[in-house]
């Protein structure tokens, strides 16, 4: 088991606290089958069908919250990708989440270096975090690995910004501001899918040709329909459940779907 990043500095009254969904992402990304996939797709020395050296992958997490997932990926790059040569970056609508993520990544990197004890650095290169709506700030077709634990809980409406709210790292937040920021982390609107649906629609533009996305879904999101919809993007598109938790009566409460284009000849 790889160590979970320390998030003890994160203000949980306004930033999502790592929970079962976060840990399912960590477990899935570090599972034998996914590290094998990531090694084969992105590690420069993996023996593969493509003879050309592989360009260094750009890994982006949307909705980083505390930064626990992005810090895990960055700190354990060597284990997950077979190389410390990865670039990582985070996006969140919540300024406090971006600030928390910077710190979480920094700590996790330092811990991974201490653990490796003077050998080659195990961690990747974190470029930073920006505030934004999904992948809007990113150049099209630039993302090689996209990770998203979205606001997935079905709610009657999407959060609306309080009148008084200023999104720029305010020094103080009111109770209303904090409840707004926390509602961003879970409230998914209709079927819990309003934000995730927007992201899925944009995937063909966001992902590089070799790119993949790991997206967390809950049972109420109707995962089978979501996967079927992705397959309508084209015959090369794949959407496969690669991790799940909380199985009751044949239903997974939470699952991680990997989405990619199968372009092998």
């Amino acid at each position, binding site marked *: 088991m790889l160590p979970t990043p320390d998030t003890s500095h994160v203000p949980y009254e306004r930033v999502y606290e790592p929970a079962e969904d976060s840990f399912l992402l960590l477990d899935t990304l570090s599972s034998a089958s996914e590290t094998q996939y990531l090694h084969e797709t992105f590690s420069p020395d993996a023996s593969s069908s493509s003879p050309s050296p592989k360009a260094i992958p750009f890994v982006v997490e949307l909705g980083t919250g505390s930064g626990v997932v992005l810090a895990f990926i960055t700190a354990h790059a060597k284990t997950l990708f077979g190389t410390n040569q990865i670039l990582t970056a985070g996006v969140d609508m919540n300024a406090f989440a971006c*600030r928390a993520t910077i710190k979480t990544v920094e700590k996790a990197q330092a811990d991974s270096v201490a653990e490796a004890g003077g050998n080659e650095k195990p961690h990747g*290169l974190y*470029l930073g975090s*920006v*505030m*934004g709506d999904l992948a809007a*700030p990113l*150049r099209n077709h630039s993302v090689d690995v996209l990770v998203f634990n979205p606001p997935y809980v079905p709610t009657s409406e999407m959060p609306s910004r309080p009148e008084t709210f200023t999104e720029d790292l305010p020094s103080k937040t009111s109770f209303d501001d904090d409840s707004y920021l926390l509602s961003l982390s879970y409230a998914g609107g209709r079927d819990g899918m309003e934000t995730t649906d927007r992201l899925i629609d944009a995937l063909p533009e966001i992902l590089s040709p070799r790119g993949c996305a790991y997206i967390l879904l809950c049972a109420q999101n109707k995962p089978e329909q979501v996967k079927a919809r992705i397959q309508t993007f084209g015959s090369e598109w794949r959407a496969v459940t690669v991790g799940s938790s909380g199985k009751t009566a044949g239903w997974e409460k939470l699952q991680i779907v990997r989405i990619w284009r199968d372009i092998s000849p």
Partner: protein
Amino acid sequence: MKVLSLNFLTCAVKACKSSSDSYPLHPQDAELVQDEIELNPDMLINVLPRLDWTALRTTSSELGFPALPEQAPTAEELQADEKMIRDLHHLLLETQISEGKLVCANCGHQYAVKEGIANFLLPSHLV
């Protein structure tokens, strides 16, 4: 945010994405901080094919760094040029933008940078 991130960022306004003026964003009133990071020539050589060199040249000169050559070096050229490796390492990896603005040359929108975090959330009339 590291200077290298500017190579991946663009204007968040949908209508700007198709305009070549929306990339790269132009730093203004940028305050820079320098970290010290161990030099990893291998890493830089592998980052090279990912870079949009023209955009990087613009960013570099706008931040007041010495001019980069017009053409991107090849991996072999970079490997042989220790000074260029150091310069790129310093610019891309050690330099962070901590405060300032990033401006889109197409729509003129200014994205504020505070505490090293750029804010790409758009006011509702631009979404």
